[in-house]
């Protein structure tokens, strides 16, 4: 009866859930272990990945003395997406060059680095650990500034194309409780551009005035640390409960431009402001349980306050396009042999974005995310237990459930804007994505 009640509660969570997290951490997962377990990792521990999922997990129950783990690996993801217009035509994000070809969502590729070590050992404080998780994509960062009415995969395109850094510190207060704090490292940019007009020419054929300027720049990038706090409670050896809070964050990108020497006008200028990589406030409640010494399961539920989110242009077309969501995630691990573990996971992420027939064309779909993975202890495999190196691999398949959008003329300021909107009169969109992560982890 008890089991049945638990199952009903979990199913209920799935049914009522509307979810979506994004970015590298939530679209793919920090490390193949977390990816394989469907992102259900807040009540697990003993990994550098806990720096993101639950910093308290950096000091799980049962670990004593000094430790050092260094992890390196690779990440790859390939999305296959479509946006189909009312006439069956393929619709894409416009280029940022005059006459350039429209663009799609690129593949994600990069390097994953992790580290966890005992910070308390020299101070004779058992269970005081530090962890670092870093994803470095092929591009350190990539973002696209577009009007919110251009087609754009709001939670896919640039969000996995930026360096991701999480650092955490945890302390196991007693065998029942670990507490952890972490930071998500981001940056803000301020750019002040000054320019001087160097040449003016009138083209009688086109009727255009062509202007040349010499530009100078004073650019500043500021660090930004967004806190993550968590607790890991271990009331009995087989059960772990995790609670995590993540503060919202986004990259603030602002600046001024002043051009001097403009004929008749003297100086002209403007102020600009964009937002990138919005991550909502998140609260996660999770539990993991060792069903047998060789089999464990976990479940996470995460509340995401997307209603505070901002688009690239700070919700230029008005508020109300974002809604709060809840993400359920499940994971299971089976230790088949001393050297081999098998993992599987699933989560459902409902989209937080809806254009409601208005001018914006921010694309996002509900996601079903299923994953599998293995963990191999290479030393035990070759019968050299002192060679404490693990190979971990995770494979993830994401279905982006097809969705449609029909433009509503009452939501447009003018008829001209209605009929000229890139999404007029309607379109549908969806797709799928395959992700792969592998790491080697050495432990001392």
């Amino acid at each position, binding site marked *: 009866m008890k089991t049945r009640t638990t199952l009903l509660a979990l199913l209920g969570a799935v049914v009522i859930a509307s979810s979506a997290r994004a970015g590298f951490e939530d679209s793919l997962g920090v490390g193949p272990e977390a990816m394989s377990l469907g992102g259900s990792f807040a009540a697990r521990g003993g990994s550098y990945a806990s720096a993101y999922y639950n910093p308290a997990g950096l000091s799980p129950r049962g670990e004593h003395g000094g*430790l*050092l783990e*260094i992890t390196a690996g690779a990440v790859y993801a390939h999305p296959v997406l479509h946006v189909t217009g009312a006439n069956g035509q393929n619709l894409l994000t416009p*280029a940022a*060059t*005059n006459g350039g070809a429209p663009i799609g969502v690129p593949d994600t590729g990069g390097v994953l680095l992790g*580290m966890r*070590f005992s910070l308390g*050992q*020299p*101070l004779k404080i058992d269970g005081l650990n530090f962890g*670092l998780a870093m994803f*470095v994509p092929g*591009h*350190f*960062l*990539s*973002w*696209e*500034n*577009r*009007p919110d009415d251009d087609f754009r995969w709001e939670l896919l395109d640039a969000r996995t194309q930026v360096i991701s850094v999480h650092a955490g510190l945890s302390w196991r207060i007693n065998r029942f409780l670990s507490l952890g704090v972490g930071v998500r490292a981001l*940056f803000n*940019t301020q*750019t002040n551009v000054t*320019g001087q007009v160097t040449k003016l020419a009138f083209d009688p054929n086109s*009727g*255009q*005035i*062509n*202007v040349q*300027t*010499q*530009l*100078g*720049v*004073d*650019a*500043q*990038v*500021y*660090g930004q640390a967004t806190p993550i706090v968590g607790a890991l409670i271990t009331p009995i050896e087989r059960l772990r409960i995790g609670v995590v809070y993540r503060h919202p964050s986004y990259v603030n990108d602002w*600046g*001024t*431009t002043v*051009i001097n020497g403009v004929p008749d006008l003297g100086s002209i200028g*403007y102020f*600009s402001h*964009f937002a990138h990589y919005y991550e909502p406030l998140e609260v996660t409640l999770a539990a993991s349980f060792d069903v047998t010494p060789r089999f464990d399961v976990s479940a996470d539920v995460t509340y995401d306050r997307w209603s505070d989110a901002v688009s690239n242009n700070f919700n230029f077309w008005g508020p109300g396009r974002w809604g709060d969501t809840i993400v359920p995630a499940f994971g299971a691990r089976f230790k088949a042999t001393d050297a081999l573990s098998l993992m599987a996971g699933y989560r459902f992420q409902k989209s937080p974005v809806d254009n409601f027939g208005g001018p914006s064309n921010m694309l996002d779909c509900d996601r079903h995310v299923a994953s599998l993975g293995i963990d191999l202890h290479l*030393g035990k495999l070759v019968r050299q237990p*002192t*060679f*404490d*190196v693990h190979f971990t691999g995770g494979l993830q398949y994401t279905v982006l459930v097809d969705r449609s959008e029909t433009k509503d003329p009452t939501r447009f300021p*003018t008829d*001209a*804007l209605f009929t000229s909107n890139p999404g007029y009169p309607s379109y549908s969109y969806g797709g799928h994505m395959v992700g792969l992560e592998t790491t080697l982890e*050495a*432990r*001392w």
Partner: protein
Amino acid sequence: MRAARVIGVGVAALATLASSHARAAAGAAFAETSRVASLADAVTARPGDAGTIELNPAGLGDLREASVLAGGHADYVSQWFQRTGDPTQQDRSRAFGGVFIAAATPLPGPAWARRIGVGLSLDMPVQYLLHLDIPVRADQPISPTYDSRPDRLAGAFAIGAKVVRWLDFGAGFAFTPSLVEPALITYQAGRAPDVNGNVEVRIDTTLDTGVSPFVGLRAKPLDWLAFSLVYREAQISRATGTQTTTAAGITAAGPFNFYQMWDPATVVVGTAMTLSRHVSFSLDVSWEQWSAIHDGFDQPLPGPIQFHDTVNVASGVEISLPKGVALRGGVAVEPSPMPEQTGETNYLGANALTLALGAGIDFRRLARVPLAIDLHFRARADALESAVKDPSSLPDADGTLPGNQIDNMGYPSFRSQALLVQGGLTATLFIGGGRP
């Protein structure tokens, strides 16, 4: 013209995670660990640690156990500039600082694997992750050493191996990204109630991950004598792209190219000698190819104002006392790569002398605690720079007026000087698990 500001963002992003001048744990300027700073960077022939992976990656072959180090530094640079005839000096002084973290370890497993070490390090300024200033005027006074260089995130990775008992070899890379950024700005009247809302901005910002390799050797033919040879590739970042701005009948279009050299190509030859059981000495001689530097708009500097290559000399002494205490001192001489600023540019800098002092305690010996703490203090004094402008080499500021109109910011002559003082602390945590 709205696109113009985006270039700045790109340039800012461009430099994030690149490496730079005075090599630190990962390469950011003036962000060396306390042990390295107090030896005036003359450490390429000394045994390596997590804080020297960019100085000489061969040092990773010396590692006996895993270690993690972290630390920070606080800096104040006092710098002034005065044009002849101006009643007061222009004060360019400022404070800055940074933190760093680095880890290095021999590989686990069989004996042959433990002869190989890997290291990773990250330097992070506390005020800016990056500050980059490329003025529109070529005659704006600029200090290539102190203006932007310390304000930059830097990362490096390296691997080293003990090839034979007396020879270590290592290689690694520092991140040197470059930026591509097309921009299209269009004014669409009637799109929104306010004028600013009528501007449509489309910009693709992509910071590609480039790397600058470095390689090193460390030979120890005798127990008391070691030699080193290190080569580091120049670290250069570029921002390129096209921008097109269209508003009514006006079109501004064209390419842009910004350039930043963080470090010139460098060759270091070093030696280290254990003079007695308690005293060791090291000497590094560096050749730096400053002649390859371009201006901020990626144009080679013309002959008369082109930088020249330099040879720097640095030496350090370490005295080991009982109970794991060490005292260190260092001195370095760095000739200025800049010629006298008689032309349009006003680069600030002169021959520099660095003096450093430091101390460290290894608590493994004092209290059997696997922790070491190092402190340092360093001063870098520039000589007085003075320059007298040659009017014939200065551009005409206003072609509509007769004669050669001069508005150069350093005309008719200027003087400048700088002094950097720095204090820092490094904590090293020894994890264990290496070879005996």
